């Protein structure tokens, strides 16, 4: 299930940032030139729309690894 969520989030990530997450779940904003605060907001929006969930407020700020977003999606939508 986790893999499924990661795959879908990776696709969303690529559509927003313009490239696949280079280090998978461990990808950090410093690893990707286009993952800035504005792109992060668009990513959060895309994830929330895709999974029908609401991510915690702390994840609206850019800085955490991609895996944290995956974990938050699983917490809020266990079937994801």
């Amino acid at each position, binding site marked *: 299930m986790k893999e499924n969520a990661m795959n879908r989030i990776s696709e969303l990530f690529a559509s927003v940032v313009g490239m696949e997450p280079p280090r998978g779940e461990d990808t950090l904003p410093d690893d990707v030139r286009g993952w800035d605060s504005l792109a992060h907001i*668009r990513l959060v929006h895309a994830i929330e729309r895709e999974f029908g969930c609401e991510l915690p407020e702390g994840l609206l700020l850019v800085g955490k690894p991609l895996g944290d977003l995956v974990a938050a999606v699983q917490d809020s939508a266990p079937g994801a």
Partner: protein
Amino acid sequence: MNSGVVIRKSHVAQFAAACGDRNPLHLNSRYSRTTPFGQPVVHGVLAAIACLTRLDASALAQFQELRLDFHHPVLPATAYKIQVEAEEQKTAVRLLLGDMVVLSAICAKRVSVVDSRTSGQTWTADLLHADLRDPWRSKARTLDAGTLPILGLEHGSYGVDVCRMRTLLEQIGGESMPFHIVSVLSWASYWTGMHTPGRDALLGQVVVRLNRIAASPTCADSAHSLYRVEPPSFHRRTGLVTIEARVLLSEWAADITVESLLRQRAPQATCESVARHLSPSDELVNKFMVVIGGSRGLGRAITLALVQLGATVLVVHRRSLERVTEMRHDAGQNGHRILSVACDAADGAALYAALDAQAIAIDGLILAAAPVIPSLPFHLSTINPSLRYLERAVRLVWAPLAACASRLKDGATLVVLSSEAVEEPPVLWPHYVSAKMAIEGLARHAAKQRPWHVIIVRPSRLWTELTSGPTGAIGTTPVELIASHIASRLATCQSWNGNASLARQATVLSTSDISSPVPLLLRKDEEHAEY
């Protein structure tokens, strides 16, 4: 392939006149000073067009998909590099400041088939009968979180001023650019800046999918178009606005997706908002304080907090008399204790002369003025702007301190605003961190050499009109909370006046101190933490 580009203010004015995007963020210095940019910024679309001029025009005309990503504001009169990377099916053009990508444009040859069933857009008869001479809006629409979600479908006609646009294109080397691309991008800029989200827009991304169509009898050329905009999608928590639109030109249909932010404007501190963190008292009655930059942001909150504790406060501001008047009204019967001097604090001699006219002795000086913070990577190409920032930021502390030094009483309190960024330096702010460290150095020197109490404040991220990021208040500390702590510490320091041995100390007030409730009295063990 790399080349350089400088976009001038005159280009910005010409683009606004040619496409109708007269958003004040691009044209109005006074308005833009109330934003985190501090000065008018270049239209993102104009910067993108400047980038696209570096591509061969015939090749550019063959692309069916264009994706623009805007990462950082583009400033006028700044030297940027344009980098072009061509591949078989797509070409990437990037605008760079040092190695920082400011914007990127990806042009792809992939044909994007328009499917009205999935896009929900249909080309209706009413659209085809729209008047091609719809006037531009003269003033940007102001929308908010209440009005944006209830917008319906909108349609009409749009045309660029061909003569002005062609003159501009010639100046930036784009005279042979396919005009239908310029026209479609101009519409995106106009719609975002003047309609939705309008005045408070911040452009994030534009995706254009172009399809050739049979010549439209209604749209005579590639400068005039009909458009249909679906009701926008609005992400309430972040202010993200997504617009899906179709723009029809004489031989082209463009499906456009625009993602932008509705910028949240940081609220100014008021007596009421400060009172939520600080109870009124008379601890600072008959004390005279000077707050440099005290009309807005954290400085304003500090002014109101000091007044709350009974102090008389002289606000030094550059051109914010209206704001100071508003503060006086807000303070009601205490309003007479807010005085003001209009003066550029960076001009030490002018401030000294202004204070001379007031004939005052100062119990506390709060140095809260700071320039807006541009994002500048540490790079060979950013030496000059970085050092200009450094000089201005340090001057805004150094000059007023020098101007006030002879008027500060023995035992007076000096408050210097630093930042927690000195402990966790942000990657694009080496100039900011350097400036704050220099300011802290001056504060330590003052603490050692003068009979003053010195407080160095290192707050975490604030939400003010100059520091407001895309996420607004999320993850920020309220300025009122920090101001209340500072005012309380000032009151404590003033109570030490009789004890000269307690002066000549520098205390660092950091995030962990500030995140807790305002202490009534400092604990003994933190009173004299020498820095």
